[in-house]
């Protein structure tokens, strides 16, 4: 699945990384605890979270994540957006609650198999 499909399935918008919708997404991780993400999210995955401060960008960058997807309408501040642009980190946002967004992505993944 690529980011374009992630956007479609979750009715999300691109906050940063407009040119990166072809990026491959190797899986998903859902958590709002940064150390949990550090310890368990895999390279190339999309991270669903309601945390929006600039450390999300640091974590996504260090782990080479495909994107961070803010759920439940959570939106990052301008510092976070600027940092993501500077580092080439893709940020997406959906107004769907986390459970709904994750459920849709899970279903889409199993349909692909």
């Amino acid at each position: 699945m690529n980011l374009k499909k992630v956007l479609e399935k979750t009715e999300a918008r691109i906050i940063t990384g407009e040119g990166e919708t072809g990026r491959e997404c190797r899986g998903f991780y859902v958590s709002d605890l940064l150390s949990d993400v550090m310890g368990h999210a895999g390279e190339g995955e999309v991270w669903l979270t309601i945390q929006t401060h600039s450390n999300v960008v640091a974590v996504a960058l260090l782990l080479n994540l495909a994107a961070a997807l803010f759920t439940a309408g959570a939106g990052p501040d301008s510092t976070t957006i600027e940092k993501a642009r500077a580092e080439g980190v893709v940020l997406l946002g959906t107004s769907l609650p986390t459970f709904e967004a994750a459920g849709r992505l899970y279903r889409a993944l199993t349909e692909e198999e």
Partner: protein
Amino acid sequence: MTTPGMVLRFSVEGGDYAAAGEAASKIKKALRKIGVDAGVIRRVAIAAYEAEMNIVLHALRGRLILEVAEDKLRVIAEDEGPGIPDVNLAMQEGFSTASDLAREMGFGAGMGLPNMKKCSDTITIETTKDRGTKVVMNFDIDDDGVT
């Protein structure tokens, strides 16, 4: 292509959430530049990030030091701070003294030291009450680890 003998130092300010992660990020970039294996870089990046966050969250100020040798990498995180009263307790997954604000931001899961242990080949912690803490982590580079 390694650069044995290379030493990089990055200072870290306690409480500076905005800059948190920058030292780890610079370490990652430096390792990529010298051609270290991607899996090793990942382990070092995770461990360095957690060490940096612990200085930001729990100490006054400190520094991260990366040492590159022929067959291994070393990350040292040392700080001036309160020290860790009970290291065995601190190493347990879920133990955290992080503030409510830090927890709201998603820090303070009590998984930082366990992540550092998991990602490094050896870890030693020296700490003195009201003085500070020094964490030394070594990372072996496999034969094919460095090209």
